[in-house]
């Protein structure tokens, strides 16, 4: 047994002439969240569909919970939960009927499937709508039901393919709480997203893919360091101190860079490590310059994304994709 819940080596997949994946490696330790980040068409969904046994890779190997996804798909299916980009529930059935049907298909037995449905409906605040056909649900309600459906058998490994695309911010936070509670219960989560803040909020590690290839893999903080060092920001209490403070900051800055006044009364310099901050504090104190604000910033993931892929992150407010189109089409388009 390995301590990796998900491991993939050199996954390759083509759709006709389109190479969706060109050798993707992934490794997710048990009990952690991996954020799979990438622009539209990068191959995120294809990777998830291979790992969840919905697609066969053309090349490479992948194991989930120690089971090979090609040789033992049934063993993999017993331990995973999957929430796709569009709701995988039956529109003509009620929310409750969907959950009971899935529970029975997952071999919980009729009574336990019923009880589990009640529990999940409560957890996802769908109790009131439980006995209405899903086609009357709002987009957010469908997403919640879909997520509930993938948690019926308490899966060890949960795949969430853009779980919050198209949700309003309030609902997104609620979804994040669910992901956090899954991890507290010991599950491993692979989450694809286009929202950088989502990856930052949830993921222990982030793999960035573009054009079917992994272009970076690190912790969120590690990724930010790729773009360059940190920024030290200081706001002296008295405006008169600005020139002297600027001199001091310049002395601790990377390569002696000049301090910029980025906002009125706020000086900023690029620095190389956390030590620069301590030094700056000591020297400012020695010089008798009181400060009201002092902070160390990593670059935002947006900047990281731009540096890695050469283009800005997707607009998070773009309209949701047609929910009925198959995911491959979305991926290769």
């Amino acid at each position, binding site marked *: 047994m390995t301590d990796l819940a998900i491991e993939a080596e050199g996954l390759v997949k083509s759709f006709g002439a389109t190479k969706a994946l060109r050798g993707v490696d992934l490794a997710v330790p048990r009990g952690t969240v991996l954020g799979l980040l990438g622009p539209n068409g990068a191959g995120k969904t294809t990777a998830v569909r291979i790992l969840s046994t919905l697609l066969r890779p053309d090349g490479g190997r992948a194991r989930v919970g120690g089971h090979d996804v090609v040789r033992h798909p*049934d063993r993999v299916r017993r331990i995973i939960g999957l929430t796709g980009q569009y709701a995988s529930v039956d529109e*003509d059935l009620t929310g409750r009927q969907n959950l009971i049907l*899935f529970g029975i298909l997952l071999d919980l037995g009729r009574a*336990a499937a019923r009880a589990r449905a009640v529990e999940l409906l409560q957890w996802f605040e769908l109790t009131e709508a439980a006995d209405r056909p899903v086609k009357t649900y709002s987009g957010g309600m469908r997403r919640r039901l879909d997520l509930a459906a993938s948690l*019926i058998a308490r899966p060890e490994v949960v795949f969430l393919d853009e779980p919050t695309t198209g949700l309003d911010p309030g609902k997104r936070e609620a979804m994040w709480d669910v992901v956090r509670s899954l991890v507290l219960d010991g599950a491993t989560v692979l989450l694809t997203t286009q929202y950088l803040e989502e990856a930052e909020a949830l993921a222990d590690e982030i793999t960035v893919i573009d054009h079917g290839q992994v272009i970076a893999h690190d912790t969120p903080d590690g990724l930010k360091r790729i773009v360059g060092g940190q920024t030290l920001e200081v706001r002296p209490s008295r405006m008169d101190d600005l020139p002297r403070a600027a001199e001091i900051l310049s002395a601790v800055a990377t390569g002696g860079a000049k301090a910029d006044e980025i906002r009125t009364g706020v000086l900023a310099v690029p620095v190389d490590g956390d030590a620069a901050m301590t030094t700056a504090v000591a020297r400012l104190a020695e010089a008798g310059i009181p400060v009201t604000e002092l902070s160390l910033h990593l670059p935002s993931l947006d900047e990281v994304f731009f540096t890695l892929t050469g283009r800005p992150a997707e607009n998070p407010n773009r309209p949701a994709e047609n929910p*009925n189109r198959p995911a491959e089409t979305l991926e290769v388009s």
Partner: protein
Amino acid sequence: MATLATPVRRPLPLIRHSAALAVRSLIKTWRTPEALIDVTAQPALFLLIFVYIFGGAVSGSTHDYLQFLLPGILGQTIAFGAIAIGVNMNTDITKGVFDRFRAFPIPRLAPLLGAVLGDIVRYVVVTVSTLGMGYILGFRLQGGVFAALAGCALAVLFALCLSWLSVAVGMSVRTTGAVQGILFLLMMPLAFASNVFVDPATLPSWMQGFVKVNPLTHLVGAVRGLFLGTPVGDHVWWTLAWSLAFVVVFMPLALRIYRRKV
């Protein structure tokens, strides 16, 4: 959370999971009863049209023609009614819910078998509604209760087996419109180059060869014999043989195409 939702391996997964998925089909039918129009209003309308427009010309009397025609209409409605499942499966597999079924540890055949079994209700409805309309117009069963029940059972069995042809087409064609078109073209000659509407002896000899092997001829021949108390000859055996053939050929074919779509 209170419930221990631990999956337990239980015996006969194919049967249990197919049954659960058949219940899903039944719920859907219950919610959209208008989807049953092709197996309720349609045979009634066909009975009325054919009996009163062609009855006099074909049999000399509308009553005699009704006795002859009713088993035929039942067979014809079953043939055309089978189109629906192919169309439905074609739309169904493009929807998200089939992705979930595919990611479940259930036999691959279960979603297909479940849909076919769930269609039993459609075929029971067609049998009852055709006989009901027939009774109103004056049709009378003459072969006794058991023969009549056997005739109905044979019709439903044949319909379920024929469904696999429809499912296979539904799996392999890209659009629902195409599924409908192809199946209609297949069912048309089955329904008309047969003993459904007329005595095959009146047909040109080149067509009779086809009529003799046409599965619908055998179904209608068998049901006619059982309903009217006349000899069924080897029609029952041929019907069973065709039913078996539909399953043996088209079930694995449908499953193969479905798997490849994964």
